[in-house]
C-alpha cells in the first residue's frame, strides 16, 4: 500500500522566476495491486508526484509511505517507465533491458536470462542485438517496459509512457500492458493526460488540479477485468470519459487566466 500524506514540493525561484508550488499538499492512498491512473492538465505536478513516490525528490513537507515505511530514496520494490523511454543509445536492447539488474549486482548469466525472458514477453524477440535508434517509438517503449519489469518490482510507476507514440501503437501497448499485468499483478501508478487511457486501464482514476496542485477527486472504474475488447462501447466507459472531460475542461478554463 502506498500512502501519501500532505506531500508538498516547492521548486525554488530560478533566474527571476517566482517559486513554483509543484505539489501543494497531496493526500492519496493506493492499495496493493491496484491500478491507479492520475489524470490532470499539463503542468499540474503529475510527474513530480511520481518522482516523490519513486524517492527521487526531497519533499518540503509530508511523507510517502510504502507498506508503512517512509520512502527516503529509490528502492528495489519500485521501477519506473519514462515518457521519453530513457533508453541508453549506446547499448543494445539486451543491455538496456538488463540495465536495472546490472545496477543491482545480478550476475551476467542471470540478467541475460531474465532480460531474454522479458524481451520475449513484450514481443521483441529477435531484436536483442538492435540499438534503440533502429527501433520505432512503440518498440522503444516496449524496451523501457521490459527494463522496468525485469527487476521484478511490486510497484510500477509509469509517467505518460504511451504519450509519445501514435494512436494505433498506443492501443496495442495498452492491451499488452494489461495482459502482462494479468500474469503478474502489480501495484501500478500510471500518469496520463488521456481520459480514454485512464478509464481503459485504471481501477481508479485520480483527478489532479493545478495551482495549487492537489487531488480533486477520486473515481472508481467499475468495468470488468480483463477488459472486454469492446469496452469502449460500454455505457459506463462513455459516461465516465465524458465526466472526466467535463472536469478537465473546467480546470483548463479556470487556469487559462492564470497562465496568461
Amino acid at each position, binding site marked *: 500500500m502506498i500512502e501519501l500524506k500532505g506531500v508538498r514540493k516547492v521548486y525554488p525561484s530560478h533566474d527571476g522566476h517566482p517559486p513554483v508550488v509543484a505539489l501543494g499538499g497531496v493526500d492519496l492512498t493506493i492499495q496493493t495491486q491496484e491500478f491507479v491512473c492520475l489524470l490532470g492538465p499539463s503542468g499540474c505536478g503529475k510527474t513530480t508526484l511520481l518522482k516523490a513516490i519513486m524517492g527521487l525528490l526531497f519533499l518540503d513537507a509530508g511523507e510517502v509511505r510504502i507498506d508503512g515505511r517512509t520512502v527516503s530514496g529509490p528502492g528495489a520494490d519500485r521501477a519506473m517507465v*519514462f515518457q521519453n523511454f530513457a533508453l541508453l543509445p*549506446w*547499448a543494445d536492447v539486451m543491455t538496456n533491458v538488463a*540495465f536495472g539488474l546490472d545496477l543491482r549486482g545480478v550476475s551476467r548469466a542471470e540478467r541475460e536470462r531474465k532480460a531474454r525472458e522479458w524481451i520475449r514477453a513484450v514481443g521483441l524477440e*529477435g531484436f536483442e542485438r538492435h540499438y534503440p535508434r*533502429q527501433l*520505432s517509438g512503440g518498440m522503444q517503449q516496449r524496451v523501457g517496459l521490459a527494463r522496468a519489469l525485469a527487476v521484478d518490482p511490486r510497484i510500477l510507476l509509469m509517467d505518460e509512457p504511451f504519450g509519445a507514440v501514435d494512436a494505433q501503437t498506443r492501443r496495442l501497448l495498452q492491451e*499488452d500492458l494489461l495482459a502482462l499485468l494479468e500474469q503478474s499483478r502489480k501495484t501500478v501508478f500510471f500518469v496520463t493526460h488521456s481520459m480514454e487511457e485512464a478509464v481503459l486501464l485504471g481501477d481508479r482514476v485520480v483527478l489532479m488540479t493545478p495551482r495549487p496542485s492537489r487531488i480533486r477527486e477520486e473515481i472508481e472504474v467499475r468495468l470488468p477485468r480483463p477488459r472486454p475488447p469492446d469496452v469502449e462501447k460500454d455505457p459506463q466507459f462513455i459516461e465516465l470519459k465524458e465526466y472526466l472531460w467535463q472536469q478537465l475542461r473546467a480546470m483548463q478554463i479556470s487556469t487559462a487566466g492564470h497562465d496568461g
Partner: protein
Amino acid sequence: MAGGDQEAARQSVRAKIMSLERGRGNDPSRLLKWSLRLGSFAALALSWELLARVANSLLVPTFTETLAALVRLLMTSRLWGALWISNQAMALGFGLAAVTGVAVGFLMGRWRAAERFLEPYLSILLVMPMSAVIPIIIMATGLGLASRVMVVFSFAFATIAINTRAGVRMIEPSWIEMTRAFGATERQLWLAILLRGASPAVLMGLRLGLIRAVSGMITMELLLIAVGVGRLILHFQGNLEAAEMYAIVIVVIAEAVLLTQICQRFEVSRFTKYSDRQRYSRAASWADQAVAE
C-alpha cells in the same frame, strides 16, 4: 501479438536488416574510391615535379629530390633523434592537457559553480593567439623541457576541456534520472552514464587537442626554442638544403595525419554501432509494422 505468422515476419525483418548490414563489406565502390585517392596523389606529385622543373630554382626541390632526401634522412639518427626530442614535450604536454582538460570539462559540465568560476578563462584561452603567449611561458619557465611542455599544454588544453564539457551537457537528464530510479550509487552513475555518455565528445576533444598539441610543438620550436624537429627545419633552411627541409615538413605532416587517423579509427570502431544510420530507418519502421500486426 502472438503466433507463428509473427515469428515468420520477424525472421524476415531480421534477414532484411542483416542484408543491409552486409552490404557494407564487399562494396564494389571501394576499389573506385581507392583508385581515385591514388590518382589524386599521383596528380599532385606529378604537378609538383613539373612545376619545380619549370621553376628550376635551388629553393624549390622537385618531388623526386624531396623523396630522395626523405629516404636519406630516414636512415640517419639525426631525424629520429629530433623526433624523439620534439615528441617528448608533445607527449608530456598533451598527456597533462588530456588529464586536466577532461577533469575541468567534467567539473564545468556538472557543476554550475565551477562553470561560472572557470568559464571566462576557458573562453579567453580558446580565442587567444597562442604564439603571443609563448614568450611569457618561456620567461616564466626558461628554455628547458618544462617550458616546451607548458606550451604544448596550453595549445591543447582548452580544446579538450570545451569538448568534454559539451559531451557532459549532451547527457540526457532522463538517463541520469532512470539510473537513479534503479537505486544506482554515485559511482555507478558516473561509470554507467556520465563517463560513458560523454565519451564520444571526449574522444573527439582529445583528437582535436592532439592536432593542437602537434602545432604547438612545431610553432614553439620554430619561433623560440630551436630544438628537435623545429631546429632541423631551421638548420636546413639556413643551409638552403631545400629538399631536406621539405622532407622534414612532410615528416611532421605525416605524424599529425597518422596520430589523428589512429584517434579516428578508435572513435569509429567504438561508436559507429549506435550512430544514426539512415539506412536503418526504413527497415526499422517496416519492422514495427510487422510487430504491430
